[in-house]
């Protein structure tokens, strides 16, 4: 029993899972049940009062989901995690613990279009005010800090163009401001980047993408790094103050360095309700077992496809941080040395019409609004994922009208290149 750190692939297969104590089942069973029987009244009271470890109701916790939670926490190097119904649910639950109405959070302008929309409109209706900053201009984050700032939100590899964010530089701004840094690590997955190693306090994922990896199950997760001190200055009352929902428990005092994950569970998930189906947790867990193999193949294919496109006469430009000529290549080599991910954009000399034509002629690439599938995917962000934005915001977020986004799958790269070649050439 030496304190030896197993490798990433070992954790991807084993962390959180053990043979089922009751049946000996080796694969994690799907505990498709809403609720769990108490031993007696005292046991029930202990569970409801957060005094004992155990299951009550699947909206608060489920044994299948718990395996997924521990596995992702282990892969990210966090103290604990909470699985929820989607990546969007993860963002709501995280910010509910941090912001009161009238508070602000700073977000990088380059984000998944759905997040930009959620932050701009839905969160505004809660009184949570987003202040945008430019991830390529670290000083813009510093300038955005006010006394009402409660968090900073960035993507490690940013949608849609696959640009790489300087996590360490922004974590320095967050530390100085005394607020946690939240990193959406969906497009990198912990195989490529572990944001906690670079100063993130909270990591969120859409599990729907590379972690699940097969385009079959929605899910989201929140990972607590255990690094942020919630007790200072009463700035985060959900964590530092006695909670009336639990007869006066102070979560940080009681749960120490995984108090944030507990707050998300017992104040967020319990009351907002976006629980993950145990069946989806099972599907995503199965996906995670092959994450290191898939992710490397995704990256290797993406680099080959990007190199092909960069040399094609119909292509105006390629934004892929894995290319030596790309403006994010220096950051890619620092943060994601194994590969720069598999989602990137390129623009066609023929503009909008050429983009539409390309998408219609592709035979292997599927035209749909998702990324991180085994299958290669293509989309025209300006008319779909980023269509809610005005034209200026589209360009600022890297989704101009001439831009096509690819999510490169794990097929044979020669077949992907041949498909693009026929669609571009004809």
């Amino acid at each position, binding site marked *: 029993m030496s*304190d*030896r750190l197993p490798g990433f692939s070992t954790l991807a297969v084993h962390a959180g899972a053990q043979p*089922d104590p009751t049946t000996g089942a080796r694969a994690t069973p799907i505990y498709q049940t809403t609720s769990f029987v108490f031993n007696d009244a005292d046991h029930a009271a202990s569970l409801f009062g957060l005094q004992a*470890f155990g299951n009550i109701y699947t909206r608060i916790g489920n044994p299948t989901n718990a395996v997924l939670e*521990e596995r992702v926490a282990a892969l990210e190097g966090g103290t604990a995690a909470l699985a929820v119904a989607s990546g969007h649910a993860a963002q709501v639950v995280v910010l509910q613990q941090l912001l009161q109405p009238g508070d602000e959070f700073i977000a990088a302008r380059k984000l998944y279009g759905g997040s930009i929309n959620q932050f701009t409109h839905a969160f505004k209706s809660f009184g949570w005010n987003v202040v945008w900053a430019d991830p390529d201009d670290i000083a813009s984050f510093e300038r955005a800090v006010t006394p009402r700032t409660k968090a900073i939100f960035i993507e490690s590899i940013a949608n849609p163009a696959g640009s790489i964010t300087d996590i360490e530089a922004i974590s320095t701004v967050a530390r100085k401001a005394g607020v946690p840094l939240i990193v959406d690590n969906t497009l990198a997955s912990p195989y490529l980047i572990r944001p906690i190693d670079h100063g993130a306090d909270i990591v969120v994922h859409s599990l729907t993408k590379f972690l699940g990896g097969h385009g079959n199950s929605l899910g989201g997760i929140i990972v607590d790094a*255990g690094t942020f*001190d919630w007790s200072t200055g009463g700035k985060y009352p959900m964590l530092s103050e006695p909670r009336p929902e639990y007869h006066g428990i102070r979560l940080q005092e009681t749960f120490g360095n995984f108090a944030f994950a507990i707050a998300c569970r017992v104040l967020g998930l319990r009351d907002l309700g976006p629980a993950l189906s145990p069946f989806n947790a099972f599907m995503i867990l199965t996906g995670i077992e092959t994450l290191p193999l898939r992710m490397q193949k995704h990256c290797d294919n993406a680099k080959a496809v990007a190199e092909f496109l960069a040399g094609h006469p119909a292509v105006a430009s390629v934004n892929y941080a894995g290319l030596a000529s790309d403006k994010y290549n220096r950051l890619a080599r620092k943060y994601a040395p194994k590969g720069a991910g598999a989602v990137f954009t390129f623009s066609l000399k023929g503009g909008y019409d050429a983009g539409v034509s390309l998408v219609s002629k592709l035979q292997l690439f599927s035209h749909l609004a998702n990324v991180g599938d085994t299958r290669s995917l293509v989309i025209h962000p300006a008319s779909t994922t980023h269509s809610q934005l005005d034209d200026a915001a589209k360009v600022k977020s890297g989704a101009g009208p001439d831009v096509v986004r690819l999510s490169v799958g794990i097929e044979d790269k020669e077949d992907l290149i041949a498909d693009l070649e026929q669609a571009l050439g004809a």
Partner: protein
Amino acid sequence: MIARNDTKKRQEMNHDAYPDNYIRGILNSVKSIAMVGASPVNVRPSYFAFKYLAQRGYDMIPVNPGHVGKELLGKPFVASLSDIGRPVDMIDIFRNSSHIMPVVEEALTLDPLPMVIWMQLGGRDDAAALKAESVGIKVVMNRCPKIEYGRLSSEISWMGVNSRTLSSKRQPAPTQGMRLSLNRMSVGGGDTAASDRAAKNKTEQS
């Protein structure tokens, strides 16, 4: 095993990051635990920890001068360590850092000495730790024995906590009052590297 009077030269303990084997050795060998600052209020962390450790089979003794004459889960409160009147293996201190030294000093007057002095989450007094270690007492600071027991047994995994352990063995289903095996494969030590670093920075700033 922990010797009550360890005469071997003791390696200087790193209190920023404990190896799992150190914590595991303590939780596997102590039988009686006196909890200083135990509270009868059932939303206080000391109550949680007291109840959990009692359910896992430890002989728990509540120490709190404010509650003498009352009981905590059937165990009578005593006013101070010297009032316990029998040997105890471990002192678990549920007091703020500034109140730790007098408790340690009192513990050092006990005969026989305790094997372990444990300071709860948020509690840390390096001078008091050094004093205890100089007479062969093992010290743990800024940790919770309930959390560590739940972590090493992986019972805490039910809450999505990273137990930092792995096992391919089939364990019995845990029931109330059952001692659990703490002998799973460790994944690189007691806490995550990032959370240890953060705790160390906080200690250095204070």
